[in-house]
């Protein structure tokens, strides 16, 4: 009984900070003032909005996978270091997170711009004559977002990797597994769940990304959050809410699908043999 009571403030907090705002969004999107799906039809029938929606999905997926491909090996590398050296390396991974996303995105403008470090260096070295267009491209969005998300994935992977008992790898080796086989048979399956979780977190956060595409992306790199913000500033609350609902639904759907698929995969792996 007392345990339930102690949970009460937490539940109240979730209610106030999460459920009520989401409820308001739903109300805004679906009632005007009577029940209507007008906003959703507008979203579905205008090609531009659908295109932005697909673009958001695609960018988020690419960023999440890129973070996995870059971050997993980094986490693996750090975990293989002597225990005493790990905290410092993790510190280095986390340092960028102390800076605001806005500041980091502006920094990318300095790096990627026409007068930026990369272009100037390449020109100075005589490799190119005229600056390459890097800023305001899709590539810039990917680079900026991956840079921001990478620590999250590394931390998630790292913490699941540190929980793997090192003697399991030794056991695999002494039983005849090469280092590669030991990795594939033991380390990979045991770190997969953390990796999938990290990738999903990055994906979810990317779906709501806003600053990076707005500042260093091109016109066609607009994401859902940019449109929502634009609609809000034009006080089209209803349409903005409808877009937010679509974004939320899509995120939840993909989350469920990936979770289901990965559970099946792990299960299948266990059943195999």
């Amino acid at each position: 009984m007392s345990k339930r009571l102690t949970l009460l403030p937490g539940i109240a907090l979730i209610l106030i900070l999460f459920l009520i705002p989401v409820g308001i969004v739903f109300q805004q999107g679906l009632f005007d003032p009577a029940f209507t799906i007008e906003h959703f039809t507008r979203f579905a029938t205008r090609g531009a909005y659908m295109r932005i929606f697909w673009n958001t999905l695609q960018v988020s997926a690419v960023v999440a996978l890129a973070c996995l491909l870059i971050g997993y090996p980094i986490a693996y590398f750090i975990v293989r270091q002597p225990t005493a050296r790990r905290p410092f390396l993790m510190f280095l991974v986390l340092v960028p997170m102390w800076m605001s996303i806005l500041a980091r995105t502006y920094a990318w403008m300095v790096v990627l711009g026409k007068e930026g470090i990369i272009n100037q260096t390449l020109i100075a070295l005589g490799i190119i004559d005229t600056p390459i267009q890097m800023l305001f491209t899709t590539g810039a969005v990917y680079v900026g977002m991956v840079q921001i998300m990478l620590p999250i994935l590394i931390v998630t992977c790292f913490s699941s990797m540190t929980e793997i008992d090192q003697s399991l790898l030794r056991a695999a080796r002494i039983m005849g597994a090469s280092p590669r086989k030991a990795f594939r048979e033991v380390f990979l399956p045991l770190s997969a769940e953390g990796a999938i979780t990290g990738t999903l977190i990055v994906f979810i956060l990317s779906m709501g990304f806003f600053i990076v595409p707005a500042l260093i992306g091109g016109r066609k790199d607009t994401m859902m959050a940019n449109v929502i913000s634009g609609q809000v500033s034009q006080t089209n609350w209803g349409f903005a809410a409808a877009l937010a609902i679509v974004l939320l639904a899509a995120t939840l759907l993909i989350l469920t699908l990936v979770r289901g698929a990965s559970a099946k995969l792990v299960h299948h792996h266990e059943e195999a043999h």
Partner: protein
Amino acid sequence: MQGSRIHFEKVTKSFGTAIALSDFNLDIAPGEFVTLLGASGSGKSTALNILAGFSDATSGEVYIDGRPMTGVAPENRNVGMVFQNFALFPHKSVAENVAFPLKMRKVPRAKIERRVKAALEMVRLGEFAARKPAVLSGGQRQRVALARAVVFEPPVLLMDECLSALDLKLREELQDEIRRIHREIGTTVLFVTHDQTEALTMSDRIAILEGGKIVQIDAPEALYDRPRTRFVADFIGQSNMFDLATVQNGQADVPDMGITIPVVDANAVAISLRPERIRVVLGDAPADKSVFEGVVEDETFFGPVVAQTVRLASGRVLDVRSQRSGHDRLPHAGETIRLAFDPADAAPLAAD
């Protein structure tokens, strides 16, 4: 199947300035069961890890069947190992765990199934094949680890304190099981423990480790009857140790006892006497030179055996264990007791 011969030749291992093994020499015959016995930190795991290929010796060489092992990866040594924490793969079923070494050796599937089944039956876990390690008890996990380590019939089997996590009854049960399996498959076993009883009951030979060195290696009986240093005498069983005064012409004084005994070993500085080797001299038996006296200070009754502590005139205290069947009446606490022993039962100790 034939076990391998194992040979450690002048192996040393240091971690920075810390020396984990120094001048470690050990020759194990094919099929022999040898135990490394020593306190925590004495270098037991280090020796095992070097043999398994998990770490390299700083100097020296390990041979398996005469083949030097430096540069041979663990997976190419054909060695079975049971880890202290069992190291079962949590994401694999019991059967998959046991199948692992066979799978790595690309044994055909049908044969894998047959051998996994046989191995699980050997450790009486046939019906647990499909379970995950997480749902098994400690003893069952230990058995799975054992089955997994021997399923590919390795000519060498290493076990690192693999029973110490289990309670006494289970431990004794598994000791029997390990001995049975050793007899059945004839593999060479290098067993590590810090439990002397376990070492005494299981081994063909026991190597006592101290500070990264083997201080004595012998069959359990010889180790118990003839410890060569104070450390060993103290480490294995209970022992009364007495300094010797100058050894001359095969005779030495034992100042604490006030007697002179024949001592063959000219290098002996002390003797070790097991409590059960000391005889109580009853009645008016003639007091020859080998009899000495003390006062019973304390006694503990164990039924067939009585343990007494006796204070000698010199102030030294010694432990005596007597079978009650041989005596009508032993002196009780506070009474004078006359003691003697066969000098052949006194193990001469060299300086540590």
